[in-house]
């Protein structure tokens, strides 16, 4: 029982620490590319909190939903980070994809 409580504490506070560090990191860095790096630990935080809920509640309805949320965030967050980075790059420098009839310009040195 004590081991279980310790495990819940460890996973819960590890998750909380990851969330807080990510949020502070997002504020500390100004560039979108730097900020996107700090959204990754949030997924680890979600996994840690889901593990803590499962240990605390056994596989109850709440625990199953916590697992569902963690799995969803694990799959969807990288997609969103990639799309955000792509949009930021697109907004800065325009579309990088070339048309089929467009030739590559090579600078001669």
């Amino acid at each position, binding site marked *: 029982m004590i081991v279980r409580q310790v495990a819940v504490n460890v996973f*819960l506070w590890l998750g909380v620490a990851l969330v*807080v560090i990510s*949020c502070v990191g997002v*504020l500390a860095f100004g560039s979108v590319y730097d900020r996107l790096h700090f959204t990754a630990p949030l997924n680890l935080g979600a996994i840690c909190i889901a593990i803590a809920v499962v240990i605390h*509640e056994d596989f109850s309805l709440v625990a199953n939903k916590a697992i569902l*949320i963690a799995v969803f965030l694990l799959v969807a*967050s990288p997609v*969103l980070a990639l799309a*955000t980075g792509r949009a930021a790059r*697109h907004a800065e420098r325009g579309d990088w994809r070339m048309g089929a009839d467009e030739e590559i310009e090579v600078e001669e040195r």
Partner: protein
Amino acid sequence: MSIWLAASIAMLAGLVPAVAACIRRDAAAMLAALNAAGVGTVLILVTLSVAFSRQAFVDLAVVLAPLAIGGSLAFVRYLERQRDR
């Protein structure tokens, strides 16, 4: 105070920098901060659900997670098209 409620309060305090980051810099940087704030809010709802033994909070988190990600993806599309105009 249970550890779950304490964890919720700690994460809520940690969410303040992410929300503050949402009102600075350019739109893309704000969007990255919004992603972090959305995921943080989902996790706060999960811990609150365990703290108060209310299943409704975790249901809210299950709904909020896809909405936060989907909303950000919609904004990403807008951001991509912004330059073309």
